[in-house]
């Protein structure tokens, strides 16, 4: 348990940034990682090869779920509150990742920001290594395309 806490503390900031990059919002990322940490401490998983990979996957799932919930709640808030509260949302702009699918963006950040291997990504997200490789390859191709377009436009 102590080593799990130490591992979580060590990777916490990195995972929050990774999730923020993947979902585009720092506040959502912070909430999701907090919840994932709480879940881990409440019921520690039996085996975690890498705490950062586990936290990243769980937090991503929670962030996306809360994103859907936020969309559903928006119309309700609009009618229930005439004066909106202060917004502290932070939007993370990663233009090169804009046109990637959710899965591609998650894998790119896992591979190139968290430095997970293909095998670790496959294990973390429950896909095959071949799928990981293909997803990353397509993502890089698309990113290069975006970079080229922007280069020509500038």
């Amino acid at each position, binding site marked *: 348990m102590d080593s799990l806490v130490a591992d979580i*503390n060590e990777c*916490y*900031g990195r995972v*929050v*940034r*990774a999730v*923020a*990059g993947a979902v585009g919002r*720092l*506040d959502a990322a*912070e*909430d999701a990682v*907090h*919840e994932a*940490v*709480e879940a881990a401490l409440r019921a520690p998983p039996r085996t975690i090869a890498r705490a950062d990979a586990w936290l990243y996957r769980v937090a991503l799932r929670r962030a996306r779920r*809360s994103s859907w919930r936020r969309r559903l709640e928006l119309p309700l808030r609009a009618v229930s*509150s005439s*004066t*909106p*509260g*202060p917004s*502290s949302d*932070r939007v*993370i*702009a*990663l*233009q*090169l990742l804009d046109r990637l699918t959710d899965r591609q963006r998650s894998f*790119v*950040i896992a591979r*190139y*920001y968290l430095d997970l291997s293909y095998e670790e990504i496959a294990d973390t997200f429950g896909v095959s290594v071949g799928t990981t490789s293909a997803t990353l390859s397509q993502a*890089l191709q698309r*990113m*290069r395309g975006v*970079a*080229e377009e*922007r*280069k020509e436009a*500038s």
Partner: protein
Amino acid sequence: MKGNFDPVMRTEDDVRRYLRSRLDVIPVRGRTAPRRRIALGSLALQILAATAVLVAATTLGFALRPRTEPLPSSGVASSATAAGPMSDIDLRGVRLSVPPGWVVSERDDVLNRRMRRIVAAAPRQGVALPTVGPDGTEQPWSGAADDLLVDLREGTGATLRLPLTDSPLPLRLGAGKRESLAGYDRWHLEFVLDGRPYTLVVYAGATAPATLRSAAEAVVGSIRPAR
């Protein structure tokens, strides 16, 4: 960040550099509690629970002030004598010194998604603690006209604006933003201690004696990291 766009993306290392240059600069706070969400189901339960508490309290003859919580006497560090040296108190990584007779309470109140009250200090027991509404806005302080309250919170309203280095000590209350509100003055000071952002809010009733205000300045000036 839009102006920092780097079109070079030939190798995998370029991708690494791109992501690190964008993500490593994001300031991340320490681990705190997640935002409290109020779903419709839990909102209904909360209303039911609040109604039950209200009915019970009314039945027992308690006079409840809405959205106000007094500084409790339990879990409190307090000095008993009316005269004497300041007392050092360590709470939640922060050390502060209070004059004799002051009441210091360790708190764990989530005020909004970015701030958590960790310490409240006042010259006497029973001073009202300010609260925030469900939308995160701060409610008016309901302390008496001669009350005073030092309210230390973990987190700030605008983490991105804070410097990454620790704030110079001692803190000066006068460096904070002062507002004269209905019946009281409020000072608001954001600072960084041991790399963690804090917010200090001091409330002073309109007729709070000058000696109390000076004491509050001394308390603020004594804030430093716990050993």
